[in-house]
């Protein structure tokens, strides 16, 4: 048998054997955890506006984001966020706390290789693509605005 044919058959066979993730429980867990993070964010925003009524809404949003990023980073540092992630999957990856986790976790891991070449270099090893694509997308949108 030609090896390509063999490999194809083997891959087909293996794919048939792979246990499937139970989709509905995973979706449900990521939905409610993700939603809860958003509710917490909204709560923080409301409290800020309550405490500082003169604040512009945009500034209050920025404060909220900073607080959420801190919480995500802090929970990563004390080893809690990976457990939330294991349970909730996308629900805790998509909100900004997940972005914070993806920067803090390699920073923690590669601290042992030094501050500059370890921590600073590796810090964006997970989040890097998100930042790059964000820059590219915003540039494209900016150009579009310039034209129309």
């Amino acid at each position, binding site marked *: 048998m030609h090896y*390509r044919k*063999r*490999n*194809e058959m*083997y*891959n087909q*066979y*293996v794919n048939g*054997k*792979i*246990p*499937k*993730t139970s989709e509905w429980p*995973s979706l449900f867990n990521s939905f409610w955890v993700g939603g809860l993070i958003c509710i917490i964010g909204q709560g923080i925003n409301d409290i800020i506006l309550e405490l500082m009524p003169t604040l512009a809404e945009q500034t209050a949003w920025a404060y909220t984001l900073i607080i959420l990023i801190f919480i995500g980073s802090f929970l*990563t*540092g004390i*080893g809690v*966020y*990976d*457990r*939330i*992630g*294991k349970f*909730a*999957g996308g629900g*805790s*990856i998509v909100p900004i706390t*997940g972005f914070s*986790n*993806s920067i*803090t*976790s*390699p920073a*923690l*891991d*590669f601290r*042992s290789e030094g501050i500059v070449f370890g921590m600073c270099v590796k810090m964006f*090893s*997970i989040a890097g693509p998100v930042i790059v694509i964000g820059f590219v997308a915003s540039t494209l949108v900016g150009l579009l605005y310039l034209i129309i």
Partner: protein
Amino acid sequence: MDNLLYNQTVFFKNKPRIVGNYSIVGPKEKEGNFGKYFDFAMEDDHFGEDTFEKAERKMIEKALLGAIKKANLKKHDIDLFLAGDLLNQIISSSYAARAFDMPYLGVFGACSTMAESLALGSVFVDGGYFRNVACATVSHFSTAERQFRFPLELGNQRPPTSQWTATASGCSIVSNKGEGPFISSATFGKVTDYGITDVNNMGAVMAPGTMNTMLAVFYDTKTEPSDYDLIVTGDLGKLGSEILIDLMEHHGVKLGKNYCDCGQMMYKIEQQVLMGGSGCGCSASILNSYIINEMKKEKLKKVLFIATGALLSTTASQQGETLPGIAHAVVLEI
């Protein structure tokens, strides 16, 4: 010419014996199915060191010293230290070796390293070149995860086919005299690639290579599965060993109840390690604790030990290469 290489197998005439065996594991492995059999369990993954890499190095050092002590030998009796691990440039083994005044050969066979080093050690001893050879390997969950996958604290979900790298180390002293199970033959495996690209499905990567080696063992030694008290594969995990059973059946060999897999047995189901354990320390620690101890008690008389490895490189797999696997086998008898 009895010890002529027939096909892939070398036969040993002078019965190289495993006279010392030592195993050391992390806390999670201690809680697993074999917890009570290991010689030593660490209280935490750091093992008193500031980095996980240093902890891994300390584990293999301790395993080597422990095995020498259990063999009633002294450090200067060891003629050769054969060791390997999973890290780039096998630093755990090589850096550990600089603390010892003994010749060192680094071997790399991914998770198949224990069988590879045992087989090579037996060749040296059987040939009369060395009296005592120490064969060891180590793996550490945290260092492997950092090198091959994601940061430890990243909140991601593991795919259902993934395996858990065991934090474990094992060392055997192969000697030309003394008491203990002897190695009657060793079968060197061929690198086998069936076109799997999923780095999270190591079982499927290693199963074809394991099948090749296992068929070679049965063919070369003129034995069949029922001739062994135990046929144990390294760390195919649950999925991988199911695939192996199917593949072997496809080739007309039926694996019975005497077949098991170290990766599948290492942890308890409630420890949530999905397909089971992996890493070269997984099979090394079980071989050097439960299996050899049971052989010494003569509860197991003939064991086929096949350590299986996925020769994975993050660079090659990111460049779209398929993943090759390998397996080496040794037959242990008492």
